[in-house]
Each structure stands twice: as C-alpha cells, then as structure tokens.
C-alpha cells in the first residue's frame, strides 16, 4: 500500500476559471495499492475538482492541448508526462495558453 500524498496544485493563465477562479489548491490523494502517477491525478482532478465543462481541461486521458504542465517547476515533457510518479509534497502547475494575448 502506498501512503496518501499531499500535493500543491496551481492553476493559472486562465485555467483557474474552471476551478471557481481559485489558483491554489492543497489536496491529499488517498492511499492506494500502486503509486499515484500523473494519468491518475488527471482522472482524479476530473472526478473531484472539475465542476463543469471538463473538456476545457482534459482531453482523452491527458490535458487539453494548449495547457502547459509544470512538475516542480519543470516542463512535464521532461518528466515523463502521464507516466510521472507523484511524490509527497510535489508542486504541479497547470497554465492555460488558450486565453487572450
């Protein structure tokens, strides 16, 4: 059994509008048999945090193209994207590039 993990999630660049305009969220993911990865985190956000129009945030099992993801301040493309295994106290940032310039 993997222990529950606490994460700091941040939404910016307009993505926060899908989360009641709140940018910072401290969440705890429950313990489960396998370690949590980004794929499962996105499914968890969709099920637990997104109230309406989830298609503006997730597409398939990933984020909608145009939303950037940073894991501990590094581009998730360097970190294995959906396969990245989450650690306790990780800092995950989602920034929309889809909002006006």
């Amino acid at each position: 059994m993997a222990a529950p993990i606490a994460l700091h999630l941040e939404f910016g660049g307009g993505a926060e509008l899908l989360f009641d305009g709140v940018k910072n969220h401290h969440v705890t993911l429950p313990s489960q048999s396998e370690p949590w990865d980004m794929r499962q985190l996105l499914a968890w956000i969709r099920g637990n945090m997104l109230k309406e129009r989830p298609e503006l945030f997730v597409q398939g099992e990933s984020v909608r193209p145009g939303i950037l993801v940073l894991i501990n301040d590094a581009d998730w493309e360097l970190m294995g994207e959906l396969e990245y295994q989450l650690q306790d106290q990780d800092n995950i940032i989602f920034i929309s590039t889809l909002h006006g310039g």
Partner: protein
Amino acid sequence: MPVQCSSCTKKRAVLKRPKTGHSLCKDCFFWAFEEEVHQTIVSARLFNRGETVGIGASGGKDSTVLAHVLKVLNERYDYGLKLLLLSVDEGITGYRDDSLETVKRNQQQYELPLKIVSYEELYGWTMDAIVKQVGLKNNCTFCGVFRRQALDRGAMMLKVDKICTGHNADDVAETVLMNVLRGDIARLRRCTAISTASEGEGAIPRCKPLKYTYEKEIVLYAYFKKLDYFSTECIYSPNAYRGHARTFLKDLESVRPSAIVDVIHSGETLSVKEGVKMPVQGTCSRCGYISSQALCKSCVLLEGLNRGLPRLGIGKHHRLHGKILAQQPLTQQEERKLKAIDF
C-alpha cells in the same frame, strides 16, 4: 531523474523547446528566447535607430512579454529606440478595467510612457453600448475594426514611427488557417508579412517581432520571469469559428510541434496566380484612413450605429456608400434590411 540543460550541461533543464526539441535550463532559455527575437528584428530590419516605437499593450501575455523583451534588447544591443506603451480601452466593464490596471503596472515596472485611447473618446461609443445595440453576434466585427484604427490614432497622437504588436507564431498560423477557411485571398497574402509598410495616409507601419515565437515559450518566459500579465477571455467574444481553428492547430501541434511554423511557411510561400482580383487600396473619403471602398469599414460601422442601422457595416452594402457620403436618405426597403439584427 532531472534532465540536464543541453546547452550549458550544468543546470537542471526546465523546459523542452517545441521548435528545436532542446532541453534548456532557465538562464539558457531566457538567453535563447531573447536572442531569437533579436535575430528576427535584425534580419527583417524591423527598426531604425532613433525611431519612436509604440508597443500595442493589452495587459495580456503576448504584449507583456513583447514589452519586456524589447526593453531588454533595446538596452543590450543599443537599438536607440524610444519605446512606449499604447493601449486601447474598448469600454468593456469588468474586463478592460482589470487588464488596463495590468498595463498601468507594466508602465511602472518597465518605466515606459503609456497612452490609453478609448473607443468612447474616438467614436463616441463604448463596446458595452455597442453590444446593447447590436447584440452578441457581430460585436467582434465592430471591436476588431475599431481597435485597429484606435491603435493608429493613438500612435499618431504620440507621433510614433512604428507600432509593434504581440502576435506570436501560433496567432500567425491561426490567421493563415482562418484566411484559407474564409477564402480571403487578399488577407491570406498579407497576413504572414512580418511588417507592413506605411500604406498611405492614416496608417502607421506595423510589425510583429514575436512572429516566430511559440506561444508555449511566451507563456513559460512570462512564468519563469514572473511577469505580471492578465488572462481572462473577453466577456463578449464567442468567436466560435476562430476557436475551432485554434483547437485544430493545438491538436496538430501536440502531435507534431513544427506544425505551427510549417503552416506559417506555407502561408509565406503561397503565391496568388495572375488574374485573381485584388481589392485596390485607396483612402476613406470621410476620415482619410486606408480603405478599398469609398468609406472605410470603421466609418460605415459608425454610421450604422449612429443611424440605428447596425447591419450597415456587416454585410456587403458598398452600393450605399455614395448615398451615405452625400447624406441622402435611404429608401424604406434599404432601411428595413439594415435594421433587423438577430440576437
């Protein structure tokens, strides 16, 4: 496993560049980003020493990054430019108010002079008032046409030599697609140009120093530099057609990142075959602004608003320009056609 920077090989990489696939650390990324904009400016000869350059500033990510980078490069390479910020207040309560606050903070952060021109002072109408009259279907037409002229007029008041805007590679690629989808050959031919020469009286040359810069990098540059920008969609913009083009492009980019520059390249190398009719550019006989018709789009839209005939500028009503100029009354049938507007 942290990835090392492929340039300095010392520090931890923070991003994978969409254009090159390189993994760079923060400092190497800032340097590469700024140098590429510098290369674009130099190779396209966008500016001349001594010029006053107005930066179209909306408070959004693109123009904020543009203002920051131009200030950095003007100092680093001694361009000898006088930079200032130029903003348009469309008069949209709760949207423009907040973004203009951002621009005012930018003015102080970057120590650049700021000029704000409002639709209300230029046209006598705020966007809030226009939406009340025309509804939410064609409001973007009004706003787009008015904004373009407003920037020019503000620039003229400040005696600016050039205007630069924050259009990035994604925007340019999107515009290429939009013009293909609309069959707008004249715009398709123009839209990839990095700068427009002065097209006669009333228009100031414009350029896009971020034309080859990916949106992803602009957003990450702003994020890592902690730049202060505003990100909310205009409350009046349900531009569904452009939205589809944008989503399509982003989907392509996620499969093949070079899709953005590839579309721009296609747009740049297209040539229009001989014999295709192009509109002839002249000037508006009322306000002197560039126009391919007797009256420019902005004057027609304004005339429509002031006469309570909002459809006037929306469809093709060129035939009526002569009548409007001569201030002749319209027939009942003409009026009826121009009045109805579906909300």
